[in-house]
């Protein structure tokens, strides 16, 4: 769902603020595209569905229901499949949530972002901290154990103490899943312009590192498993859907600007493709109406490219890349054969950033925080 009521100051996603949305038309196109792409992929079973955006909670439950019906019609959608909806506190009334639950949603991801009114204003959010509390409490009532919240840290001017306080408040509010994102000042956003222009202070590197380490410690102490760079879960409430990205499984992207990675079995292919749907909603709808889908680009991923993705994504998780998963993409050359030999990876293991053992290849606690400094070396070694 690519539409928002208002653009947030830090956001550079493919979102659109329009006065009126022809929801029936968008719904029809989402349904049609989902059907087309599922047919092309010939997947038998869908393990998870994620409604993201934009602000999907602005759509009506009927649209969500229609898409889920289409999925269930084209493939097997087991009763236990994870169906997540992204929601904003400002568009999350209890009745709306009830409607989404009735439509089939069984997990909610709420964009709380901050629990401080001044910070929320800086981020250009429409809600207050109090509204966020209310929304999360309502969601927990309807989706107990399956409500996730998103929080940002490293906001311009945010102090170490302020962040510690937010974390404390978060622990009082949260359910069993938290996504903690360091704020990225994306080019072209209002917030980045303010920082560049000097109107807001740029957060210092060391402070950001401290905030991250504090969060990891606090959440782990509270029983959370730090299962991915920015994701924390307790009582096994890991996001199945997001894990599938990091495990480089197949996924189909439906809607304007959505990305997918899957094999086009219907065309007799056996190679994984990277597909991107047309960005702009009106153009996307036109294409879906005329040809059943709005795929703008299709790129066949070479075996090396697939391994590069697996490596870069898998190392973000605490389980890392298992021998089994690696073997799935690289039946000939084992993890041990590539990264166990003398070279960059071996040096990084000796320096304590990486571990390669019977479980597979993964980051150490320290290595996870500097993964982006490790990856170029690993990719360079993999390419050779």
């Amino acid at each position, binding site marked *: 769902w690519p539409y928002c009521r208002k653009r947030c100051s830090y956001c550079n*996603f*493919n979102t659109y603020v329009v006065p009126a949305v022809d929801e029936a038309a968008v719904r029809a196109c989402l349904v049609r595209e989902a059907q087309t792409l599922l047919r092309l992929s010939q997947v038998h079973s869908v393990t998870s569905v994620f409604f993201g955006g934009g602000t999907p909670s602005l759509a009506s439950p009927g649209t969500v229901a229609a898409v889920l019906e289409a999925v269930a019609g084209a493939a097997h959608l087991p009763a236990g499949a994870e169906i997540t909806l992204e929601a904003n506190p400002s568009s999350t009334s209890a009745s709306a949530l009830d409607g989404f639950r009735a439509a089939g949603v069984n997990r909610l991801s709420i964009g709380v972002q901050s629990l401080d009114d001044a910070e929320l204003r800086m981020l250009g959010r429409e809600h207050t901290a109090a509204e966020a509390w209310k929304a999360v409490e309502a969601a927990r009532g309807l989706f107990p154990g399956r409500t996730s919240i998103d929080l940002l840290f490293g906001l311009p001017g945010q102090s170490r103490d302020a962040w510690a306080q937010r974390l404390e408040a978060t622990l009082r509010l949260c359910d069993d899943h938290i996504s903690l*994102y*360091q*704020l*990225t000042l994306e080019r072209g956003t209002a917030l980045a312009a303010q920082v560049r222009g000097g109107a807001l202070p740029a957060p210092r*590197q*060391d402070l*950001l*590192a*401290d905030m*991250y*380490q504090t969060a990891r410690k606090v959440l782990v102490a509270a029983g959370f498993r730090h299962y991915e*760079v*920015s994701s924390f879960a307790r009582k096994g409430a890991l996001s199945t859907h*997001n894990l599938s*990205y*990091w495990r480089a499984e197949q*996924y189909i*992207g439906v809607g304007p*600007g*959505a*990305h*997918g*990675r899957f094999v086009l079995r219907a065309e007799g292919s056996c190679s994984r493709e*990277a597909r*991107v749907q047309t960005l702009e909603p009106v153009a996307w709808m036109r294409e879906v109406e005329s040809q059943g889908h709005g795929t703008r680009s299709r790129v066949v991923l070479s075996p090396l*490219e697939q391994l*590069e*993705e697996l490596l*870069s*994504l898998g190392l*973000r998780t605490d389980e890392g890349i298992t021998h089994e998963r690696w073997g799935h993409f690289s039946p000939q050359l084992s993890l041990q054969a590539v990264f166990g030999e003398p070279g960059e990876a071996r040096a990084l293991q000796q*320096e304590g*950033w990486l571990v390669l053992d019977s479980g597979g290849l993964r980051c150490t606690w320290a290595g*996870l*925080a*500097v*993964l*982006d*400094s*490790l*990856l*170029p*070396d690993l*990719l*360079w070694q993999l*390419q050779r």
Partner: protein
Amino acid sequence: MALAGRAALRWGARLPSPGPAAAPLCRQAWLPAACGRPYSSRGKEEIDMSTYPVESIRNFSIIAHVDHGKSTLADRLLEITGTISKTDRNKQVLDKLQVERERGITVKAQSASLFYNHEGINYLLNLIDTPGHVDFSYEVSRSLSACQGVILVVDANEGIQAQTVANFYLAFEAQLSIIPVINKIDLKNADPERVEKQIEKLFDIPTDECIRISAKQGTNVEKVLQKVIEKIPPPQCNTADPLKALVFDSTFDHYRGVIANIALFGGEIAKGQKIVSAHTKKRYEVHEVGILTPNEQPTHKLYAGQVGYLIAGMKEVTEAQIGDTLFLYKQPVEPLPGFKSAKPMVFAGMYPVDQTEYNNLKSALERLTLNDSSVTVHRDSSLALGAGWRLGFLGLLHMEVFNQRLEQEYNMSVILTAPTVPYKAVLSSAKLIKEYGKDQITIISPAQFPDKLSVSEYLEPTVLGTIVTPPEYIGKIITLCQDRRAVQKDLLYIDENRVMLKYLFPLNEIVVDFYDALKSLSSGYASFDYEDAGYQSADLIKMDILLNGNPVEELATIIHNDKAYAAGKLLCERLKETIPRQLFEIAIQAAIGKKIIARETLKPYRKNVVAKCYGGDITRRMKLLRRQAEGKRLMRKIGNVEVPRDAFIRVLKRETDK
């Protein structure tokens, strides 16, 4: 010569007809004036040069500080004598290189033969133009050695400037007649009287000898010509003597080879003669001789005392070195004194910005050096910057002009490293003396720097700098000069508005940014010029830069002991800003031998991982990671520290001027 090929632009010349000024019959259409020398036209009547005996010849130069009107005066002289037609196209101002204006040079213009009738006698006046900057002082001295007199042009408003002083002494030492000319008297603020007094005080020339002119308006320019005839003696030489010709300039023409500008000190020269270069001992057959008007105009012969050009099948400009003497085959003569091979005084590394441009840059360099034998080119390669060259220039300005021509004429973008100067070491170690075969060696790169223990003395090149400034800036200028380790040699009030300071500078102290500093602290009023002043003993050391204890070869520098601390600190700071953080702490140190004199610490990354990486982020993310992985190949590894090429470029690159 570095700067040839410019004059045709400036003088946009028409070919004149020979003969007296009274009848400028311009039969030729406009010549293409776009590139270097246009071809001389064939099939026209050749001038009989034998009608100009030595007594009716005057050879002279115009010398001046930048912008004092040398080229405008030359334009007028050419117009009056009918060498070029009088039109408003004859403006020297339009085609000036940016570098000339910034640096204060006059780019060398072309020589010209003027025909002028004075009191019933036809005179041949050879205007031998000189490059107007001290980087080319050797060339200037060779050009002046073909003259018997000079016109010294001084701006009626600005008065005597640094270059005026330097030029005056060059002419004075060559024992030439000097005709002082005060130009721009038409300007509102002109004060010729004051300038006359300055000239009297500084150069000991009586005030009534100065000619007040306006070259722009043509006022009194005719008087200058008359003075040239009256005051400058004819050359002392004889056509009956064997041929003795001085090469005072040379250019390269793709179709005709080397064109050498020559002045005849004896004998005569004609097509078909066999000549020999005293320097190279090579033999040539003369294909063509002629005069410059200012384009080449062939003549049957040239005679003693005359000035012109020669084409003799020379393939490279190095075959026609400035200062060389030519004589007839089997009739050797004593070579003219003062010949030296061009001696580079400033060195800099030059590398293509992108290594794939290497071959293009190579061919551009080859083409540029065809016309400029004074640039020395040695292949060099740096682990950080790739394959390139170490170039030697006559001076800083020469380097600027060369680089700018490379950019403007060949559209080449290059990395030019900060300039260095040639040091020397007097060896004390018997072993090294044996190894080098001499007890004094020239050190061009830090890698050659011999250890103190095997050296009795290090030497550095010096220059004698002349600064002329309004008095209010004296304090700041003295401080600047002291900071640059300069020693005051003279301080003289030319009048109440002008002070002349003379300082002995270590050359390396002025090669980077001295001129800019001087200009900026004097609001642009102070002028500067310098001349070679030999070598002096210096407390030199080699400073290494270490990354986590490992020396970085391309960052080693030879530096004066007093400057090491500040320079080391600056280098470390710059490196800290340019080397990206890594997984471990990096100590950036400057060291002299084992002694650390400066240190900066680059903290390790504590967090470097992108926050969000879901379906839509992956493609963009992979693109960046692949580029970074690719970048690993271009990293220079010092121990375990990775240094990107950019960091080297930013540290090594010459700071460009504002």
